């Protein structure tokens, strides 16, 4: 009971988004690495940490795939998220990648072969709206690190600096089939900070979980939360105050971007002052950071789209878009993802018009439906959330196939993270992030049985030795039989 109250309170603020990790891709300017080396040569007065460099990567990923065995799952239904399901199909995972998917595969002699009769295989599930690690369990104030609620614009904070890798919610997420998470700062602020994209793996450090090559996200938040938090603390106090706050910040950011792009191109003269807040926003304007915008109401989403046009950036996805169905045509036109719950609504004024058919209506309009959680419990069952969305569509005459709905959980969120070339579908060459389900993933009775990340078996429901327990779990969380 206590947890219910806590989570409900948390959800009020925990909602918004940005995401992050860091991109090696060259920016319009130049890559971080080469700039770094030039910096040390060219700048006499500043250490390289004082320079504002596009795509800088000061906290690089140290993730390395866990040891994997060549694995074949055969005689199984495969939902590829790239085409129709393959009945009685087979999939070969080798060297951390998906090697073959089809009606049958040639099992190498060293392969572990799993008979999947009656079972289903899907890509690893991706939750693009998580606060794991930044709002870890247990939910004590000492670890409440998700909202830098000191002023409305805090684009200078990075979620990864709050992530506690020993959050016991991580292994529970993995057991729900989640292989990739975007962890975001909360939604107290207009600009909440940078997100981070993580592989759901045991690690001593957050760097060891960071998805190599993933871009950062920026979390922005509309509506009730910022104005409630700052209404009596200097504002914004109203929605018009919110909008003024976004625009003011973008104006400064654009000036900052111009200044630094100029200096980075020439390295002439004294470098401008580095500003972590404006740097994150400037990276959005350069296209190096993706905008994940917490926004419930249709009218507010439409205004955020205009602001994006005004300043020349792109919104990758609206999160918590409970009214996305009202502007599904606009989302399609702007190519913005709708990251939504199946049936949260009514818990505050801006959530009043949440409907279960949201996912189906967005899908029908040709826009991208993404199932997200914003909740450590819901995240474990995103497949069940999508299942509700299928049925809600059916009830109003929209037929969503399971092959379509699986995309809401996999390739669509991968697209919103710009990781769809690596994860999100079962196609040769992609990361072997794979879930074996006990049955149809859209049945209430089905559970994830085995989960692989980069080909390594990291969760096995049938084998307690393959069930990750965090440092926190040890001694605190009892096992059946009473042992801890």
């Amino acid at each position: 009971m206590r947890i219910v109250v806590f989570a409900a309170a948390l959800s009020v603020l925990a909602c918004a988004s940005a995401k992050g990790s860091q991109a090696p891709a060259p920016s319009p300017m130049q890559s971080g690495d080469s700039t770094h080396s030039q910096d040390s040569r060219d700048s006499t007065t500043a250490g390289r940490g004082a320079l504002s460099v596009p795509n800088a990567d000061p906290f690089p990923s140290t993730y390395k795939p866990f040891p994997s065995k060549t694995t074949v799952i055969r005689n199984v239904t495969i939902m590829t998220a790239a085409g129709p399901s393959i009945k009685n199909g087979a999939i070969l995972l080798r060297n951390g990648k998906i090697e073959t998917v089809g009606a049958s595969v040639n099992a190498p002699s060293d392969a572990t072969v799993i008979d999947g009769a009656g079972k289903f295989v899907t890509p690893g599930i991706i939750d693009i709206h998580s606060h794991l690690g930044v709002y870890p369990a247990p939910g004590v104030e000492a670890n409440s690190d998700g909202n830098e609620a000191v002023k409305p614009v805090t684009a200078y904070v990075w979620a990864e600096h709050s992530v506690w890798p020993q959050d016991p919610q991580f292994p529970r997420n993995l057991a729900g089939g989640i292989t990739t998470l975007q962890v975001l700062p909360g939604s107290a602020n207009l600009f909440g900070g940078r997100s981070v994209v993580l592989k759901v793996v045991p690690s001593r450090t957050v760097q060891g979980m960071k998805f190599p090559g993933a871009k950062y996200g920026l979390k922005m938040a509309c509506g009730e939360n910022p104005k409630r938090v700052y209404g009596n603390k200097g504002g914004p106090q109203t929605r018009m105050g919110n909008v003024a706050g976004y625009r003011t910040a973008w104006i400064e950011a654009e000036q900052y971007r111009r200044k630094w792009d100029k200096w980075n191109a020439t390295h002439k003269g004294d470098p401008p002052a580095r500003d972590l807040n404006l740097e994150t926003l400037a990276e959005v304007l350069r296209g190096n950071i993706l905008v994940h915008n917490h926004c419930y109401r249709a009218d507010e989403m439409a205004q955020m789209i205009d602001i994006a046009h005004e300043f020349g950036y792109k919104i990758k996805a609206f999160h918590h878009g409970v009214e996305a169905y009202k502007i599904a045509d606009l989302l399609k036109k702007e190519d913005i993802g709708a990251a939504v719950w199946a049936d949260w609504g009514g818990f505050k004024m801006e959530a009043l018009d949440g409907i279960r058919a949201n996912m189906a209506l967005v899908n029908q309009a040709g826009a991208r439906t993404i199932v997200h959680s914003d909740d450590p419990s819901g995240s474990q069952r995103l497949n069940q959330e999508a299942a509700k969305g299928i049925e809600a569509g059916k009830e109003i005459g929209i037929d969503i196939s399971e092959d379509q709905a699986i995309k809401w959980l996999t390739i669509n969120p991968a697209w919103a993270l710009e990781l769809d070339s690596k994860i999100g579908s079962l196609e040769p060459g992609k990361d072997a992030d794979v879930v074996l389900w006990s049955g149809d993933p859209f049945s209430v009775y089905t559970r994830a049985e085995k989960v692989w990340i980069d080909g390594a078996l990291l969760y096995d429901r049938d084998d307690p030795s393959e069930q990750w327990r965090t440092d926190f779990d040890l001694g605190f969380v009892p096992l059946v039989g009473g042992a801890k």
Partner: protein
Amino acid sequence: MKRSMHRSALALVAVCAMAGSLRAQTVAITGGKVYPVSGPPIEGGTVLMRDGKIVAVGKDIAIPANAERVDATGKWVTPGLVNSNTSVGFGDVGFSGGPRELSAKGHDGIAAGFQVWLGFNTQSTMIAPAREGGVTSVVASPSGGLVAGQAAIVDLSGALPLSEVLVKAPATMIAQIEDNESAKVGAAGEAIGQLRDLIEDTKAYMRRKSDFERAQTRPFVAPRRDLEAMIPVVEGREPLTIIADQAAEIREVLNIAKDYGIKTVILGGAEAWTLADRIAAAKVPVLTGAMNNIPGSFATLGSRQENAAMLRKAGVQVGIIGNAGGGDEELFNVRNLRYEAGNAVAYGMSWDDALRAVTLAPAEIYGVADRVGSLKPGTEGNVVIWSGDPFEFSSRAEQVFVRGRKIDAPSRQDLLAKRYQKLPPNYESQK
């Protein structure tokens, strides 16, 4: 002021509605796979309702000529579900808008005299979504404080007068010993002491009522209204539902039950599985969920999805409530009770026990098994016709009967979905 005038206008309409509903109505649901819960399933069974009550259930039921026939061939027929932990009817918005009539101020955390149903809005927009999920009765509970007040069991018929929807009021007293701040205490031990004082003082008050009226008793921990409300609890006629999660808290609930011989119900019960045998022996029912496995606080370190199944296996009377967390299982998503039951099955409970845990079990726990929770003759005509297995996402509650009447009033959500199903070329022209 405006609001109270609105309410009296509604009351007028209510009189007319009541007159209509009193007309004799006979409905026969035929051909379905019937799960009475009070007895074994019946393939191709008939459920006969008259004047709002179930009058017969079985294979070869004579159907009166005047009966309205509802063909349920190929469908599943169950009692309406009973959600035993909700705040439905006490506000249309969870947060940041509109009134919420859930929490009394009380005195020192005690509001035993608070009758939450007096604020129940029979027309709340939160009722229709619950009903669409097959939920026809709810325990409408107060919250906050040490003793939150008295809960009622309400049928979600949508009838206007409170008297037409109340099944039992009070049904139970609600208390909690896990949130010190809310209980206005410094430690769980103090909360338990306060609860014990309240019980002792109620007993003293019962013995010395006339002295109390003349102000010739020592001070009691609560005023007269609260002590009066506690009498049926102390006499063992009304259960005391105590929200408790941690094993140590649950242990103290069992001790209170034993020491005073009162009926208690554990609500929450995250770590109840660790004491399953003792809870079973004490015959204390547990209301818990099947969708939370997060050690969300130091009191719920043992949260696990198998909890409900393990308790049932030990012989505990288990009612299932929503506890996934975050999704407002007590208000907007009261409707998701059936999925909670399905998850309980996924984590070890038998399907029959899970159905019982969302129908007859809570009805038995709160002493209303003669009214709701099964398809037994004499109970209210609360019946759901499902397209398939009620726990499955691919199934829906196709027809919902409350007190013998089919209710198909759309929810706000239905109206919104319909409005936006085709994007209007000119929104302003939409009605």
